[in-house]
């Protein structure tokens, strides 16, 4: 009898612990989702007194950059709208986590989503296609004529604008002036080049200094390819979203150019992003084409202070539409339709990201973030001289380049296209095929991936 009761108690404890475990998980869950509109979150929210602040949750991925910028925005908003009664909670995740968590949350019906999320423009189409109706149409909420046209175009689908444009990947050619001068060239010679002229200079630099002219990542050469392609106003896809690789004259010229660089021995193929930064910091390479955020990697080499310069990127002489301006990457802020505090989130974005040039100055000075808001470019902050670049007005260069960047349709499948191009380039570099063959291969692989 005694044994029996002990057994029953133990079994009861075991079963209880199971429910306790579940209950705990549920409360934690509802806390996480309180802003996301789950039933649990709703009841919890209703229980609150009206005086309590609503929380707007923001997901971003770089503590020193976009997370810090959004925290700055929260402060600005709190100061200028003291009666808004919202608390902005900026959550810092890794970029992969932002994507994977958002994707699983949306696929699972929308529990656990943030209210505002940062997405790269390259994945914009993918999310808008895969989750139609999950992102708020902001077309009437902002005056989009005040933002860079190519940025607005990147977050537009079927005539509706779905995001507040944030930073850009305006490309520049960063180069070591001391090495260029050693090879007998001047700063003047590096302006408005064509890629063919650049290769000729590169040959001299490599010959006279023993340093390779330009760096690209071996397993993923698409930064150069993408910047060359958009400088012509062309992309992997045409404006209607059809694959445009085999007959893409910009891509063909880009492939030829990069192959020429390799054959001339001026291309340093780094093994990883760290390897690329390392090669530049150690002085093994004389130049790189990349976006504004790459400058912080260059600054790591303090002994190279004053030896760097930035110029407009070279253009492709083979393509008539090619200009000395392009873009690689950039990101924008999205508001989620299933957010419980959707209207507050929109009001917050309007209050800070539109019309407030002081805010844009602050984030440029503190985080080095260059927004896409054109009136912001007129301020003095953009005329600052940069000692690392020998006193050059670096931000001024970007404000010149940005309005020229030609809008293209990134489409919903950039990662797929990048992989197809990377594979084709590997085969081209290993001598398994020629330029036309590589392009055909890439088009075939991409069409296969997209089931077309």
């Amino acid at each position, binding site marked *: 009898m005694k044994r*029996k009761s002990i*057994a*029953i108690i133990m*079994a009861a404890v*075991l*079963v209880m*612990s*199971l429910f306790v475990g579940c209950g705990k998980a549920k409360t934690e869950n509802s806390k996480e989702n309180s802003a996301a509109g789950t039933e649990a979150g709703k009841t919890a929210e209703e229980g609150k007194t009206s005086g309590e602040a609503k929380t707007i949750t923001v997901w971003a991925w770089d503590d020193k950059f976009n997370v810090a910028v959004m925290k700055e925005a929260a402060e600005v908003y709190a100061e200028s709208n003291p009666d808004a009664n919202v608390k902005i909670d900026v959550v810092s995740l890794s970029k*992969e986590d932002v*994507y*994977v968590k958002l*994707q699983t949350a949306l*696929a699972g019906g929308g529990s656990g989503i943030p209210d505002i999320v940062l997405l790269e423009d390259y994945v914009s189409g*993918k999310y808008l*296609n*895969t*989750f*139609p*109706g*999950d992102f708020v149409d902001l077309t009437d909420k902002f005056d989009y004529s005040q933002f860079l046209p190519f940025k607005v175009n990147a977050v537009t689908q079927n005539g509706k604008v779905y995001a507040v444009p944030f930073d850009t990947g305006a490309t520049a050619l960063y180069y070591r002036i001391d090495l260029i001068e050693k090879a007998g060239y001047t700063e003047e010679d590096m302006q408005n080049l064509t890629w063919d002229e650049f290769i000729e200079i590169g040959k001299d630099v490599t010959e006279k200094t023993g340093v390779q002219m330009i760096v690209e990542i*071996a*397993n*993923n050469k698409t930064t150069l390819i993408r910047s060359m392609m958009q400088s012509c106003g062309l992309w992997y896809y045409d404006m209607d979203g059809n694959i445009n690789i085999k007959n893409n004259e910009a891509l063909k010229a880009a492939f030829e150019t990069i192959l020429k660089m390799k054959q001339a021995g001026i291309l340093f*193929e780094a*093994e*990883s992003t760290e*390897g690329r930064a390392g090669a530049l910091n150690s002085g093994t390479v004389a130049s790189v084409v990349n976006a504004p955020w790459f400058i912080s990697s260059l600054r790591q080499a303090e002994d190279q202070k004053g030896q760097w310069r930035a110029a407009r990127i070279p253009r492709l002489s083979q393509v008539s539409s090619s200009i000395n301006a392009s873009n690689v990457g950039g990101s924008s802020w999205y508001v989620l339709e299933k957010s419980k505090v959707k209207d507050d989130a929109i009001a917050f974005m309007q209050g800070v990201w539109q019309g407030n040039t002081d805010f844009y100055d602050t984030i440029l000075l503190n985080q080095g973030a260059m927004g896409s808001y054109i009136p912001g470019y007129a301020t003095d902050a953009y005329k600052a001289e940069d000692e690392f670049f020998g006193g050059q007005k670096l931000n001024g260069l970007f404000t010149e380049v940005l309005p020229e960047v030609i809008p293209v349709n990134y489409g*919903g*499948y950039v*990662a*797929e296209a990048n*992989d197809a191009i*990377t*594979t084709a380039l*590997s*085969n081209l570099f*290993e001598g398994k095929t020629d330029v036309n063959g590589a392009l055909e291969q890439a088009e*075939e*692989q991409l069409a*296969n*991936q997209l*089931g077309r």
Partner: protein
Amino acid sequence: MKRKAGPNYNWYGWIFISTAFLLYLIFTIYPAGASLMLAFQGMDGGKYVFTGLNNFKRMLGDTIFLQSLKNTFFYLIIQVPVMLVMALSIATLLNSKVLKWKGFFRTSIFLPCVTSLVAYSILFKMMFSMDGIVNQILIHFGILDAPYQYLQNSGWARAVIIIAMLWRWTGYNVIFYLSALQNIPKETFEAAKVDGANAFYVFFKVTIPQLKPIILLTTIMSTNGTLQLFDETMNITQGGPANSTMTVSHYIYNQSFVYAPNFGYASAISYVVVFIMIILAIIQFGVAGKDN
């Protein structure tokens, strides 16, 4: 007493396992069933719709999938036998009566198994990088003139992955063999020696047959492990160059989280892997004989 408590204890038994079973049901059975359903569905305007065998048809024409399947089998055919032979040899050495410092060697051999998959992958990537230790040693001894980019050559990239896996997993299998070797009754060895068998003969005719069940176990485990290979290729080569090191698991990940999400297609590929594993296990059981 037994009769009195019987039916009640039976009932308690169910209560006791209910916790574990419920968790198993929620976190294993349900997802497995749900993903099987998903394998027959495709994305249409943000919603999953039933598409029949479309996902499986697509696989037949998907060059990257076929390439990744080929790569996975390449790893399987080269790496698993080499690793198991190495593990068996090391285990036999460690089991030898004349060996001193046994504890030290055993620990050293097993140590790689406690390292994290990501950490050791990154370590191997560093070792085989341009300025890595492998290039430095080869240049120091005059074998190479300039650093070689191992991870940019499809053949070498595969070799690096196999070398990394051998380092990480051989010790794990050694432990299995070692414990099996110690469980073999000593009388059988003595009897063989009395009958005049040499060491070679004893190993192949006495040791190996008695290790058969454990050899079968390690083969199946290693086969499953290789078919699920992900961390190594993801961290060492990202599947490159030209998809030559891409594994099926890596491709499933790409289809789910890198490319436009297609969980239906990814589930379908997962089930093809499950199917292949079952077939391989059946073949292995058949080869090893039914008595085991």
